[in-house]
């Protein structure tokens, strides 16, 4: 009995004041492949484990890090199809922002917009929450780099460095020891790769991870495997 009796409907609080569907969504996230991000003083890097279930899967068609605006990108942990829906929606809404205000949507507005969509799915009838946590890397309107996490409940957090998905606890401990305030983007990329490798099952190559960066005055870009290989070679 207890809490689980209230877990059937999203829009019903349990006696202890929890929305169990959201808790369960967070479980789905914790089952997802690790994703992490580090905010340096001159840019942000997000990275994820792209380990594919079988050698037969064509990695070219799997993309986890996606550009949303010229200055921001997403990465996720959790249920892939839910991510696709959010990516499409956020892209469209940032074009609306561009149309209305004549400027690229700053990362903070993008985060609150996306978080607000995710919250909507915890209160409307007939839907379930998104089974993903997002990492948003981007620049805000004065060019300052920022990293955010958005959860299935719709709450969002700004981070200096964080990790989500499997092994996020040990990854976060690792990052806590390594993050410094005067870190530069190149160091951050290096640290991100080291952190990813900590919890990686098997050998980490340029083809089974993804890296996305945005530099202070630049555009968000997903790195090519050849670029990742250069960083991996440096790290060895």
């Amino acid at each position: 009995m207890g809490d689980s009796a209230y877990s059937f409907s999203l829009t019903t609080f349990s006696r202890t004041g929890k929305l169990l569907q959201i808790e369960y969504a967070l479980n789905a996230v914790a089952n997802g492949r690790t994703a992490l991000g580090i905010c340096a003083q001159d840019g942000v890097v997000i990275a994820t484990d792209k380990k594919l279930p079988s050698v037969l899967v064509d990695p070219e068609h799997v993309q986890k890090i996606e550009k949303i605006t010229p200055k921001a990108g997403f990465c996720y942990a959790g249920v892939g199809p839910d991510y696709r829906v959010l990516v499409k929606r956020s892209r469209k809404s940032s074009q609306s922002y561009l149309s209305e205000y004549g400027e690229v949507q700053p990362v903070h507005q993008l985060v609150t917009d996306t978080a607000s969509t995710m919250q909507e799915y915890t209160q409307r009838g007939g839907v379930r929450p998104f089974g993903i946590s997002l990492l948003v890397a981007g620049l805000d309107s004065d060019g300052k780099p920022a990293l955010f996490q958005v959860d299935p409940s719709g709450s969002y957090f700004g981070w200096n460095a964080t990790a989500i998905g499997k092994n996020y606890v040990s990854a976060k401990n690792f990052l806590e020891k390594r993050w410094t305030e005067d870190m530069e983007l190149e160091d951050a990329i290096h640290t991100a790769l080291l952190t990813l490798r900590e919890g990686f099952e098997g050998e980490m190559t340029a083809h089974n991870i993804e890296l996305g960066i945005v530099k202070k005055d630049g555009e968000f870009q997903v790195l090519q495997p050849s670029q990742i290989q250069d960083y991996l070679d440096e790290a060895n």
Partner: protein
Amino acid sequence: MTAGSQMNANNLHEPAAGFDFSNYLRNQNLLQTDGAAPKLKAKKTGTTIVGTVYAGGVVLGADTRATNDTEVAERNCEKIHYIAPNMYCCGAGTAADTENTTALISRQLELLRMDTARPSRLVTAVTLLKRMLFRYQGHVSAALVLGGCDLQGPHIYQIYPHGSTAKLPYTSMGSGSLAAMAVLESSWQENMTEDMAVQLVQRAIGAGIFNDLGSGSNCDICIIKTDGTVDYRRNAVKPNELAPLRAQVQRSGRLNMRPGLTPIIKSEFKPHPVVAAGGETAMEVE
């Protein structure tokens, strides 16, 4: 909320399929009232716009005068609009229509580029533009010359306000199009070099600037090359500079008096008394 639209899941109005004629009766009524209602005069661009293909890409050209009937509303406006990193569009007709139409299609193409992870193609832009313009049955007064380079090579398209399009090696639109076309028809050749193409476009726009009242001021040029680089030359040619003409006007010396010409006989300084909110003078100064 018009009768022919519905709300979708995102609370945005979507047009119902087909045409929406709900304003037709209202428009008929307006025209029949006594002393028929004056039609809104939109700011038009007059305009000469030109586009041509050459050996290494395309060259687009435009004049820079915007008119409101016979008045020049803007002497140096920009008529070459960004559509995509590899595509630009010259616009003639109503200024607001050309700007907003090109901006809308530019945003749609950006979404498509992110979804498909591929550079945009000219045919996509042309199709999006013509479908939208046809839907508005010519009421969106945008006559466009779209040019750019994609994986299939360099292309120039002309798009009319009612939604018809043509793919051509060179073209001109706007009120100065005849003057420009006269130049193009006499001098255009296949496989021109970049310099030849730029010279040709400048002469064609120049013909519009000097022979058409709706076009004038300067010439803007945009070169889009097959290797993906873009050379946007704002005010590439300025044959109508005003500064030398203004300098020739003899004005009375008395309009330009330097400080210090008037001798000061006596000076006295009295600060204004500060009155507090209650109405009483808070500070009296001797």
